């Protein structure tokens, strides 16, 4: 995967909580056998009406957010199905960073495997950022190494991230290649493993 460190762009304010992976990528698009090409289907039923026309009110369809790389949402983002097609769609559409007060576990894990940085800020901080982003286009700069998000108005938000995942993202490591280095430990475990 691609390494990630500094991402600067206008934020896309998606002011919703409990955004589930069925909304991020609907089941009719899960039948492909590739990892690519899912961006066109991101939030499909929110972006388009039944006739396939763009829903002008939906935030992703507003021109000021077209080149955004940072998605900001409310609590419990990515809940529901484990489908990794959700982060594939987010990344393929052009987002590298998702900011929310909390993420569902499987989605959160899936982000790190694909070079997407999920950032947890407090609910109050997310509310503040969403309000700014909804009022007018608001740019932010994410710095993974420094673990900060800085607004165009100079407001700085610090975030925590597990050091293992931070290193993985900064280096764009292939996790399987890393794990294969532990072959001796895995083999030793298997040798004493009690199995019925």
């Amino acid at each position, binding site marked *: 995967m691609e390494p990630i460190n500094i991402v600067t762009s206008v934020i896309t304010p998606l002011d919703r*909580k*409990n955004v*589930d992976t*069925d*909304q991020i990528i*609907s*089941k*009719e698009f*899960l*039948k*492909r*056998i*590739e*990892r690519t090409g899912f961006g066109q289907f991101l939030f499909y*039923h929110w972006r388009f009406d*039944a006739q396939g026309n763009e829903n002008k009110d939906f935030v992703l369809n507003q021109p000021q957010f077209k080149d955004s790389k940072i998605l900001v949402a*409310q*609590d*419990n983002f990515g*809940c*529901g*199905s*484990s*489908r*990794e097609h959700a*982060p594939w769609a987010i990344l393929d559409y052009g987002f590298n960073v998702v900011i929310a007060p*909390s993420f*569902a*576990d*499987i989605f959160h*894990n*899936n982000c790190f*495997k*694909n070079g997407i940085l999920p950032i947890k800020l407090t609910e109050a901080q997310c509310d503040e950022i969403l309000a700014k982003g909804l009022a007018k286009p608001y740019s932010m700069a994410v710095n993974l190494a420094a673990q900060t998000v800085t607004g165009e108005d100079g407001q700085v938000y610090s975030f925590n991230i*597990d*050091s*293992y995942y931070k290193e993985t993202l900064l280096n764009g490591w292939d*996790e*399987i290649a890393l*794990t*294969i280095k*532990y072959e001796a*430990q*895995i083999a030793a*475990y*298997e040798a004493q*493993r*009690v*199995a*019925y």
Partner: protein
Amino acid sequence: MGKNIIEKIWDKHVVYQEEGKPDLLYIDLHLIHEVTSPQAFEGLRMNGRKVRRPDLSFATMDHNVPTKNLPTINDPIARNQIETLAKNAAEFGIELAGMGHPDQGIVHVIGPELGLTQPGKTIVCGDSHTSTHGAFGAIAFGIGTSEVEHVMSTQTLWQNKPKTMEIRVEGELPVGVAAKDIILAIISKFGIGVGTGYIVEFTGEAIHKLSMEERMTICNMSIEAGAKAGLVSPDQITVDYIRGRRYAPQGEKFEEASTYWLSLASDVDATYDEVRIIKAEEIEPIITWGTNPSMGSGVSKNVPMQADYQDESDQAALRKALAYMGLEEGQPLTSIDIQHVFIGSCTNSRLSDLRAAASIIQGRKVHGNVTAIVVPGSHSTKKQAEAEGLDKIFTEAGFEWRESGCSMCLAMNDDVVPAGERCASTSNRNFEGRQGTGARTHLVSPQMAAAAAIAGHFVDVREFVKETV
């Protein structure tokens, strides 16, 4: 101090541990299906890697498979995905219960049926409802496709040890209240995110009186409370269920295994990071009225009002959910008319679910405005149900009796609820568009779904049984 079952199983599976890193956890069983595996197999091929332990892997086809007119698959993209799994399983040496195979079925139904699911195991699958297998006292959780590939290649996963939570269901479950109602009540009481970052152990008298199939229904939906996994400590009911199953240990080995399994149960003085308690007596049959599984209420209640919520964002969520669902604030839940009934899914498609639904509809007819289907969870469940004559009860009442698969739970195949129509569904998710674009899903137990099929609207199954006997 005693240990809980989560700590016991976790500690036994740590291959490698280092400060500042997640634990490298060994995986005992990897279940595979057609939708979340093709990119993982492709990754192995691109990197010249093999499946490390095909003997600890098992594949089936469930998400995409048609439930009628087998073996024709009308959708060419779905057909490609199904054929791809068959090719991949053959190439990498993985046992496959494919379409038409006697062991085929929903992955979370066949694992237990075949005896693959056992206490103390770590079990993963590229499907969030893998938590189902926790009913046996296993740590079972859903993973993404990259993790599927990681398990295939290394039989391990890097995992941060989750916190532990006890959800205790105290007291006696009232008559007419199902396991589905327990878990829906838990989610509506504590919220859709209560379990995020935790593995949950369900404890209490009401839980340990349940059959294995009922425990599977509860653990299945732990993910709808955000939990990494949900489980129940093994007891004699667990051991009795596994005895004699094909992949279970046999003879003396079984006795040895059962002793080990029972030793995994949480110690009496075990502690948890968090404890939540619910009283079984308070639970009534639940109907969801909204667009996530926490948006549900007892059958005697009304659709909530905005005034019931303090928080503006909760009021907004209610408005949005009711607009999608086409419901009015304050409307009695029993006044909701339905057009479809789906009895099936990894939550409620096992033999006991089919028996429970059949007991309600026996000798009755499906309402003229309702289309009703039953989709058994596995080929083997279907055969057993037919041997008992359940298929006749359903078809004589006007239900369609189908082949096994995930079907209308996520509508990836042809089983779709049309836009604007309502479905009383025994599945696990009522998200927008889950059963079809614009479709409106109400989650209920098999008994409640069956009663609604007859009445054409929701009814309290407890009253329904009394009135119509």
